[in-house]
């Protein structure tokens, strides 16, 4: 378990493919159900649209 442990080399906690894809992000997505993926995307879109409204014209 890495939770609560001090990490001396954070690079060891990353996992990128040779073409630069973040595999940890993919694994996290795959850990969700399709319904959770949809819900997450919906929330993100709403947050981004809200930020765009708050910054309209900038």
């Amino acid at each position: 378990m890495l939770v609560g442990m001090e990490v001396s080399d954070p690079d060891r906690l990353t996992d990128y493919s040779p073409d630069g894809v973040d595999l940890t992000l993919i694994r996290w997505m795959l850990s969700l159900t399709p319904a959770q993926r949809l819900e997450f995307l919906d929330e993100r879109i709403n947050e981004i649209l809200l930020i765009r409204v708050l910054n309209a014209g900038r």
Partner: protein
Amino acid sequence: MPEGKLIATLRALHEGGVEFILVGGLAAVLNGAPVNTFDIDVVHSRDAGNIDRLLPVLDALGAVYRMQPERRLRPNASHLASTGHLNLIARYGPLDLLGTIGRDLGYHDLLTHSIELDIGEGLRIRVLDLETIIAIKEELGGEKDRAVLPILRRTLEEKRKAPGQPPGQSQV
């Protein structure tokens, strides 16, 4: 929790009895790929009966063409029967209705390459499988398609390594 805008559009299509397959970026997300997207792309069946069911759903969603939205141009049955792409804006956001994708692949061609997914609140919809999404993007070979291919390919690799699929996913 209030229903999200993406699911609201998909529910309207589903409850209207519309035969469709979700494709594009949202299909990639539902397959587990961490990509971002703002629109809903679906390939609809161009059978006459399906078009008859689709038209009132589009009316209820207030769907009009995104080009010149001020003119409130609505798609009609002949538009929906075409193999082309209808880029619409509806009540809950952008909605693209695609007669065909890739090399003239329509709803019936893609059916065997789709999976049925539970997207929450009892709603199950057909989604293009990741292998086919990748194959079509490889065929198209556009800059936008090439940009996302590494993420899609790695997601497919990780899925194949995974011991099982998350709940709510079943092959059809």
